[in-house]
């Protein structure tokens, strides 16, 4: 009865990928689930994104620890011919929408008290309803947690390193628990801080 899934949005993946610290996600003692749309965003390479090879290597190197899940929007997207893919510019929040669709899937399938953790940076995610099974945490809140646990020496320095790699993380210390998680449950319970 605890954190069962870590679900990073594309923002945190790009932030950590920029400074070659995707290993900080490996420390979750649970599967890492990436929706097909988010995987596409990081592998396709949005403007300012690190080389897709960083993510390809990470996906490959972690075997079944990292799972890519299909969502309706991802399936639709993959069916669009490459020459028509500029349509994505007109689809807002495609990655977040795919996570929202996945949250509907897990809503009734997880055990009592189990929950997933969504890592994100887009501020609109704060007000999106992902159901009672998903907790939310911003990259900045995650970094502060890592600093408090002694996993990284300084959230501030980490933020600066990412900024020097031309990527800005909003300093937003937002965190929201999953409604159906047990009282007092924390993502740090399932995080390897050694």
């Amino acid at each position, binding site marked *: 009865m605890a954190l069962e899934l870590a679900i990073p949005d594309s923002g945190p993946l790009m932030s950590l990928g920029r400074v070659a610290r995707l290993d900080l996600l490996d420390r979750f003692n649970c599967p890492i689930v990436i929706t097909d749309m988010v995987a596409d965003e990081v592998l396709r390479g949005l403007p300012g994104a690190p080389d897709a090879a960083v993510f390809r290597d990470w996906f490959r190197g972690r075997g079944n620890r990292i799972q890519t899940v299909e969502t309706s929007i991802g399936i639709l997207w993959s069916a669009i011919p490459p020459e028509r893919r500029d349509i994505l510019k007109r689809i807002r929040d495609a990655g977040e929408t795919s996570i929202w669709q996945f949250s509907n899937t897990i809503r009734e399938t997880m055990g009592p008290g189990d929950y997933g953790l969504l890592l994100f940076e887009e501020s609109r995610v*704060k007000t999106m309803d992902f159901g009672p099974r998903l907790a939310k945490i911003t990259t900045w*809140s995650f970094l*502060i*947690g890592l600093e*408090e*646990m002694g996993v990284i020496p300084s*959230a*501030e320095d980490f933020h600066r390193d990412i900024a020097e790699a031309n990527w800005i993380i909003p*300093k*937003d*210390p*937002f*965190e*929201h*628990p999953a409604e159906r998680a047990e009282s007092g449950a*924390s*993502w*740090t319970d399932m995080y390897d801080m050694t």
Partner: protein
Amino acid sequence: MYTTTQIIQGFLTGSLTREEAMHKLHMSSYSQLLNALADRGVEPPKPPPEQVRAELEAARPILRMMEANRHGS
């Protein structure tokens, strides 16, 4: 106390001072902390009753003066 939620909870329950919480959250102003609370739908902690009483006591002469002006006009 590791997470931002635990830090904010510590502030709300009084185990962390405002300054300690702000330091841990890398905040430079109290308004940032108030924003973080509002973002979570949490009201800021109320000041202790003795502080409220002292503030009211300090304001009493000004209130009396305002009242006198109102009647005098």
